């Protein structure tokens, strides 16, 4: 009985010291999430992208792709790859600037 149960030892000792320090990015990420700012930023970005028609453009790309490939042969991964290059490139400058401004002010406010 005992030999069949093989559990790895509880990593008590390993939890206390990590291999590396959390990166600055990770720290800020945690702060963003915990403060709720990340969610607010995401909603803001989503809203702006809908307003400027970016989302509709992406949906059109997806529709065309699905029509070509066959509606049942499409995966989420396919669609992500279809949208990403065009999506990243077609963000309006004003939207990008607004979001970057907000992120920067958050960074400043967290007193790095």
């Amino acid at each position: 009985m005992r030999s069949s149960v093989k559990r790895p030892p509880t990593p008590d000792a390993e939890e206390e010291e990590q291999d590396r320090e959390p990166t600055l990015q990770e720290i800020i990420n945690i702060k963003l999430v915990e403060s709720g700012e990340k969610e607010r930023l995401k909603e803001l970005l989503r809203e702006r992208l809908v307003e400027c028609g970016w989302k509709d453009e992406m949906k059109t790309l997806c529709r065309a792709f699905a029509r070509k490939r066959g509606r049942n042969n499409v995966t989420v991964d396919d669609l992500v790859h279809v949208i990403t290059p065009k999506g990243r490139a077609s963000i309006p400058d004003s939207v990008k600037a607004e979001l970057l401004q907000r992120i920067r002010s958050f960074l400043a406010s967290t007193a790095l």
Partner: protein
Amino acid sequence: MAAPNEDNLSSHSQLSSQFFGELLDSIIVDVASECHRIARLGLDRSLDDEEEELRLSAQARARVADPSSSGETTSKYVLDIFGQTHPPVANEIFDCMNCGRSIMAGRFAPHLEKCMGKGRKARLKATRSSTAAQNRYSRGNPLSNHSPSSNSNSMNRLSNGTSHVAGYEYSNGTIEEP
């Protein structure tokens, strides 16, 4: 202290861009997921509407044109456009308005033939009463001596009673003349 500020600024802007990129990627995945759902559930009516219809109608046409598969055995169970099957003989039962019997719908026409007098045997029993009526109306027609069978034959079937008809008519005419 300008240098550290500049460093901070550049790292800030770098970090900002990174976070922005992260947010954007997350939104892209959401949009892709939404479009994937719409595509797979067929919610976008214009997506393959016409293509699906064309494909389905081509399939149906092939199935109809192909006599081998849907030949003898499955002809009873062929579906109509509403997906219903119909038995080869209509099996609803109702009452005949002439004789009052319970008749199956698919056998109603032949029944009516017999019942209302198109058939040979029907004529027999029908004109038994109708010639009796005729005999009454024609003022003691001596032709009533004729057997009912010969009367009915002459009335109905030329093939059977042609001679009878001739005889009948002539005798009728003869007697009627004053």
